């Protein structure tokens, strides 16, 4: 697959991931208003010690109206991503601004991967296509390998108990019947060990073409499963947007 097609595919997938991120926050915009949980009038207390120009800039960008403008701009940049090269920089700036407003991230690791994809795409379209794609690919491999190795430190993951614990957490609202099914010892162990094997073994995607196809196919299924079970929809869209870069990088450099 030629480099230009890979970049275009990445742009389309990043456009979807960015648009979903912006629209989801626009849907719950009342949470950002003065009476909402994430009112800037409350959050701004944490930047009270910053220099006056930074406070003034933060008030302008992160107030209710400013945040809605940033979200609208993020959505517009998402729509423009497949067409205009510079849209990646705008989408990147908006994504970082939203994360900063929400004290570091709104949706955890999915925000971080969206920043990685948009930054890599922006670099790729600014005259360094292979560097941008290689950056996305490297972060993608690291994301799985680090997540897998970190899990090995927890005995519940090593014993195969972790999956049953996670599906029972109220934070993810896993439907009761699905949670009961996944918490069965055999299924829970299978799910837990499969997760460990996939994440720790993901760097094998760099070995050859067949391994790369297999790893990306399993990865797509893994994220779709997480989206269905845990409701982690943004991880599905965002990680998918990083896959073309790995495919290209693995075939080009290795």
């Amino acid at each position, binding site marked *: 697959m030629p480099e230009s097609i890979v970049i275009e595919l990445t742009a389309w997938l990043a456009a979807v991931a960015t648009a979903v991120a912006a629209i989801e926050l626009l849907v719950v915009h009342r949470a950002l208003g003065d009476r909402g949980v994430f009112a800037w009038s409350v959050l701004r207390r944490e930047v009270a010690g910053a220099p006056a120009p930074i406070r003034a800039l933060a008030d302008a960008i992160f107030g209710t109206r400013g945040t809605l403008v940033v979200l609208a701009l993020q959505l517009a940049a998402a729509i423009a991503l497949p067409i205009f090269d510079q849209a990646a920089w705008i989408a990147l700036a908006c994504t970082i601004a939203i994360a900063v407003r929400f004290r570091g991230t709104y*949706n955890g690791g999915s925000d971080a991967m969206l920043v990685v994809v948009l930054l890599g795409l922006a670099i790729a379209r600014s005259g360094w296509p292979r560097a941008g794609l290689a950056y996305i690919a490297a972060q993608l491999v690291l994301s799985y390998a680090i*997540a897998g190795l970190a899990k090995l430190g927890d005995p519940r993951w090593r014993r195969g108990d972790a999956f049953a614990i996670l599906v029972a957490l109220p934070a993810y*609202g896993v439907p009761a019947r699905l949670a009961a099914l996944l918490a069965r010892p055999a299924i829970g162990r299978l799910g837990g060990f499969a997760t460990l094997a996939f994440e720790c073994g993901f760097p094998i995607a760099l070995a050859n073409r067949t391994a790369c196809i297999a790893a990306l196919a399993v990865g797509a299924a893994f994220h779709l499963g997480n989206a269905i079970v845990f409701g982690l929809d943004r991880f599905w869209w965002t990680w998918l947007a990083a896959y073309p870069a790995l495919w290209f990088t693995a075939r080009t450099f290795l």
Partner: protein
Amino acid sequence: MRLIDRFRVLLPSWRFFDRAVASPQLYIAEAGGAWQPFAAPPRRWFNWAFAPAANLALAYRSVIEQLVAEISALDPATPDDDPAITGSVSYELVTRIACERVAPGARFRWKVATPDDPDFVESAELTACRSRS
């Protein structure tokens, strides 16, 4: 929270679900009522692709975890009504989360339970906002 922490999206840690433990749980009680857990919104069929309410609830969970982290960093003898706790932004945000689940004008309390402490921190009795956000 330090200003630099607001930029942590630029330095991803990639340590997802590295500890399979129960997360802190927020409970809310209207005056005279029993503690009710703050629950995630019901799952909808399209949430695998688009989940604004569920992701907002996850952002609320992050706020609760941040409050627990901040209180854990204080002297364990610090009382729940100490300004070091009640004056924090995280405390105010958790109060607002609880407020959303209470009828306008009602008296209520909230508490956060952790796996090690069912009464990790408890608010005084508060009056819910006049209108929900």
